[in-house]
């Protein structure tokens, strides 16, 4: 038996050896990268329960949803226009009235046609790579996937037998990595296709073609960067009179409940820089990338929309159905916050302008939010808005695969 002083060393030695071997085991097994949506968290946020919400990929029947909770201003009517379009996001209307709908988490593009007052949802295209972007002009449907933009000519004559895709431009997703690479797509007044390539993460230095809105001429395939420093815009439109590009933008996550705001912007010309990753909401330097920068370098937003509120689709109202004061107002689908303790958004917001052009925002279509502190806090999420030719407003809900119609003056 060892003398007492040595015996007392045994547990100490064991503890030391155990600690060392545990440390060795830790060193041998490096931790995996955290989920990509957690990128940019600080030490205090490591145990945060906040997380993004997934859509119902199988959709939900409208009769199971509390649609009667939806509320629009007096005189407006809200109804279910179509269902059975899981993951429904961006919308575009064809010359003959077909409503084309893109998806992000699914691989489908839908064509919705009116059959005597009832809507029939056809799965038009299958097996695409996040076909979020949808645009239509002169008989041709354009679709933006992660990696390419394609065209389908004469599509409305061939809804049951769509033609093969013709490539407008390919190679838009060279790294195939996690990031904001699903695309919004719209045709500008110049006849070019505008699309976004978002940032490759929450808060990271983007490559030259990322965190940008670009445009491609469908006749030549030539690409130009149009706007820089745009973290992720998945909704834009052109002002009916000035013809300038307006767009929504998602601010970074993990900078607290109240910061930064998601934003509404106007690009008055090609080549402006809107701040990402250096400056957020026009006045807040990023704690990491903002060092040695000045927000004055960048074009500020026109309007702060609310922190983490997730503005997606936006359209100017140019229809004839709503009251005159709605003319050239903007409707924005706020998909709703996840990176915030108290959830907000989950509505369609109206932006109007006073005589000096100063914007003012107010909720237009509400009722998707059920409990701002619950997980999940909502039963549905507005994703895109589109003005129909009759002046009514369609609102897609990707959570449930349902499209609602807001009309005025109807009974």
């Amino acid at each position, binding site marked *: 038996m060892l003398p007492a002083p040595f015996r007392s060393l045994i547990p100490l030695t064991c503890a030391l050896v155990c600690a060392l071997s545990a440390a060795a085991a830790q060193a041998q097994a490096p*931790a*995996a990268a955290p989920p990509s949506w957690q990128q940019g968290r600080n030490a205090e946020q490591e145990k945060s329960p906040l997380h993004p919400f997934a859509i119902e990929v199988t959709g939900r029947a409208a009769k199971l949803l509390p649609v009667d909770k939806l509320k629009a201003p007096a005189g407006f009517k809200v109804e279910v226009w179509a269902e059975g379009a899981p993951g429904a996001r961006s919308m575009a209307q064809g010359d003959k009235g077909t409503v084309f709908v893109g998806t992000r988490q699914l691989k489908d593009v839908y064509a919705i046609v009116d059959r005597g007052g009832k809507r029939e949802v056809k799965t038009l295209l299958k097996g695409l790579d996040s076909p979020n972007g949808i645009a239509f002009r002169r008989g041709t449907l354009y679709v933006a996937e992660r990696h390419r933009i394609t065209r389908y000519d004469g599509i409305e004559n061939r809804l049951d037998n769509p033609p093969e895709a013709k490539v407008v431009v390919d190679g838009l997703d060279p790294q195939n990595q996690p990031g904001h690479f699903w695309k919004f797509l719209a045709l500008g007044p110049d006849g070019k296709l505008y699309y976004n390539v978002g940032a490759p993460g929450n808060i990271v230095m983007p490559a030259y073609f990322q965190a940008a809105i670009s445009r491609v001429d469908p006749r030549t395939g030539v690409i130009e960067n149009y706007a820089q420093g745009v973290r992720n815009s998945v909704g834009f439109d052109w002002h009916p009179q000035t013809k300038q590009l307006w767009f929504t933008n998602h601010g970074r996550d993990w900078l607290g409940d109240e910061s930064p705001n998601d934003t509404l912007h106007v690009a008055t010309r090609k080549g402006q820089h809107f701040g990402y990753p250096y400056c957020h909401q026009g006045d807040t330097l990023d704690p990491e990338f903002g060092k040695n920068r000045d927000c004055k370098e960048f074009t500020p937003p026109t309007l702060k929309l609310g922190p983490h509120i997730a503005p997606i689709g936006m359209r100017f109202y140019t229809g004839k159905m709503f009251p005159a004061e709605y003319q050239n107002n903007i409707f924005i689908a706020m998909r709703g916050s996840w990176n915030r303790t108290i959830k907000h958004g989950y509505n369609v917001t109206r932006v109007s302008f006073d005589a000096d052009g100063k914007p003012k925002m107010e909720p237009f279509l509400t009722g998707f939010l059920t409990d701002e502190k619950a997980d999940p806090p909502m039963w549905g999420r507005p994703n895109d808005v589109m003005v129909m030719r009759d002046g009514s407003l369609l609102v897609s809900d990707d959570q449930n695969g349902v499209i609602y119609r807001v009309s005025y003056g109807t009974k």
Partner: protein
Amino acid sequence: MSGNRSAAAMLAAALSFFPPCAAPAAEEVPQKAQACIVCHGPGGNSTDAAMPSLARQPAQFIALQLFMFREGDRKDPQMSPIAASLSNADMNELAAYFSKQKPAAPSHKTAPENAATGRRLTEQHHCVQCHGPALLGLQHIPRLAGQQFAYLRTQLRGFKAKTRADFDGNMTSAAELLSEGDIEILADYLSGLAPLRD
């Protein structure tokens, strides 16, 4: 989380008020679920280590997996043909049914030497970040606690090998740095956990 807990409490209160509802009779199993329980066990409680339990898995998770089988993202000689014939409404109905079934106590016993290491691995590799601190799952994220041992091991191996379809890429990245030994310990640890909150 607290919303789910209070909903569960309300459900429990409702069930105790209407005792006949508490134990559904065998004939109440929906017709569509009859084929499922042949392999996944009565009430979705599997007794086969290679076959996953469905009881109290979140409904959104079950529907998502059926969808991935039907769309061909996940492939399995038994599940693929079954899912091929299911509509979205069928999937939602099956998901709702199995999500409400009470999970059985785990038959698997975690090796004592793996308990602490297993817990450490769930934190080191961010399992608890999405699956929750008690690994009970939420929304489209599955319950791991009390899931079958061999099934968990097969899935983790599949994610590591990038052969198991992944809805959002998070599992592929989480499994990337797991060693075969880590996978063995994780599966042993997770399958021995209680499938319900105390």
